[in-house]
């Protein structure tokens, strides 16, 4: 199949009185990792939230697997196989790591019903989770919370992961752990749309890249192309690149 897994066509989004997305066109091909880059306020997070149905689409169309999902509710969209890791990670602080994972596994009524092999695989990716299994998630460090958030998104097979700035606020060593984990994840042919500001992090993972500015997509191409062209980087990402390196 050649149709992209996810397609945004001229999507406009308003938050209250504010017009945030001004006609976003974006294609996320199957089995690849697409990075969405851009300055603060470019509309990256809004794009993810719009796909997830957390903001309503004012006009335009969001297609998942060819089907228009722009009028669907968030739970319905999740059931199609889209998992979302928000910028604040959305970890339930009062619940233990185990309980967080159990909620993410929609099909399981108890932890025993989660596919054991998959759970082991997740533990291999993020060993800290196993260690703090019965601890309230609120006590985890920032990096561990991020791991839990990603782990929740992959505890059951999902077709598309929407991940908002997983590197935000993490120490370089932890970021490197994340890179390893995401590389592992890419082996499973999961399609990923990753919002990032950290170009270094993005460069190590991305197959394709889209750059946003002012609520629009201003550049689409391969990561290799952007990584090799410093002028293009300078032009598209400007100071934000230097600031985040």
């Amino acid at each position: 199949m050649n149709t992209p897994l996810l397609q945004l066509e001229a999507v406009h989004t308003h938050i209250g009185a504010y017009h945030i997305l001004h006609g976003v066109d974006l294609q996320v091909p199957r089995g690849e990792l697409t990075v969405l880059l851009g300055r603060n306020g470019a509309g990256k997070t809004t794009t993810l939230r719009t796909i997830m149905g957390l903001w309503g689409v004012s006009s335009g169309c969001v297609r998942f697997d060819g089907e228009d999902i722009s009028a669907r509710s968030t739970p319905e969209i999740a059931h199609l196989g889209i998992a979302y890791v928000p910028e604040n990670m959305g970890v339930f602080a009062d619940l233990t790591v185990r309980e967080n994972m159990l909620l993410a596994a929609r099909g399981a009524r108890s932890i025993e019903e989660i596919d054991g092999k998959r759970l082991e695989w997740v533990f291999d990716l993020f060993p800290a989770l196993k260690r703090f299994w019965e601890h309230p998630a609120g006590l985890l460090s920032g990096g561990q919370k991020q791991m839990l958030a990603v782990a929740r998104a992959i505890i059951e097979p999902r077709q598309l992961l929407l991940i908002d700035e997983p590197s935000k606020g993490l120490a370089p060593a932890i970021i490197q752990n994340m890179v390893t984990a995401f590389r592992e994840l890419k082996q499973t042919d999961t399609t990923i749309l990753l919002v990032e500001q950290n170009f270094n992090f993005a460069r190590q993972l991305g197959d394709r890249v889209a750059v946003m500015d002012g609520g629009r997509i201003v550049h689409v191409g391969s990561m290799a192309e952007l990584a090799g062209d410093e002028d293009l980087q300078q032009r598209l990402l400007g100071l934000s690149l230097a600031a985040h390196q």
Partner: protein
Amino acid sequence: MNSPSTPTPFLDALPAVKLDRIPLLLLPVLALLALPLVGSFSTWVTLTFAGLAMGMIIFIIASGLTLVFGLMDVLNFGHGVFITLGAFLAASVLGRLTGWTESGSLLLNLVAVLPAMLAAMVVAGLVGFAFERLIIRPVYGQPLKQIMITMGGMIVGVELIKVIWGAQAIPLPLPTAFRGSLLFGDAAVEKYRLIAVVVGLGVFAVLSWVLSRTKLGLLIRAGVQDREMVESLGYRIGRLFIGVFVAGSALAGLGGVMWGLYQQTITPEMGGQINVLLFIVIIIGGMGSVGGCFIGSLLVGLMANYTGFLAPKVALFSNILLMVIVLMWRPEGLYPVGKR
């Protein structure tokens, strides 16, 4: 093999799982403080039991209110209607079963009270369903309208109760076997208060079990913290909410039966009068926290009874006093619910 219990030799330094137990200590501290003031041990036992019984009934009523608030930021100013409704339904049911309630046999009495409680819970739950659909749903997310509309729902509800049962106070006598006291040494403890404590503990146990051991409970607790994330994980928070609302209304109905039997007289205004008390309890406990609501209810119950004995004039303000003290110590209540 999916049980991750293999111990790891090099545990990271993570603070041990710490349950905040200080609020729990408030109960014995309050009780012990009251002991020398009351003077007589047997009176103290009587008062303590009266306070616990009252607190348990308040807890049954308030638990739904706090959960509904936690889950959807909906504060139902009309919660009191379900209390009144429960009490009046009980009066109707028990009024038809006087043969059993006056028999003096504990078994027959229970057989009469159980259907009364059941009827109160079922009808209050159904009315709660309609209330959520008709009254609350249309103004969801608009706090100002919500306050007004739930208030309006209460006015209409109370008036309808008056249409059905009349505007006067009616008696709700205790079944014969529930009357009188048991003697523990010198201390007299009313039987009905014991029953109230048992029922309250039962409700607390069931609620705690559901909230901590079932997936439904996890969803409710997760929803209280972060609604959006629960939806993003694929669960319909709306359904969860209406479920909790109906359960909360049913519990208020049950609480209404208990409260009515406690007072032995019921009026159409009884629910509205208890509203303030409920708000104080859920503020003290931390809005959205069931555990906090439990402790808050018992504190309010104990405080009311101790001060009622020691200084009746102060008793009228004891709840507000308690709220102010707690809020000065913990501005978000005993167990603040971590919200985004």
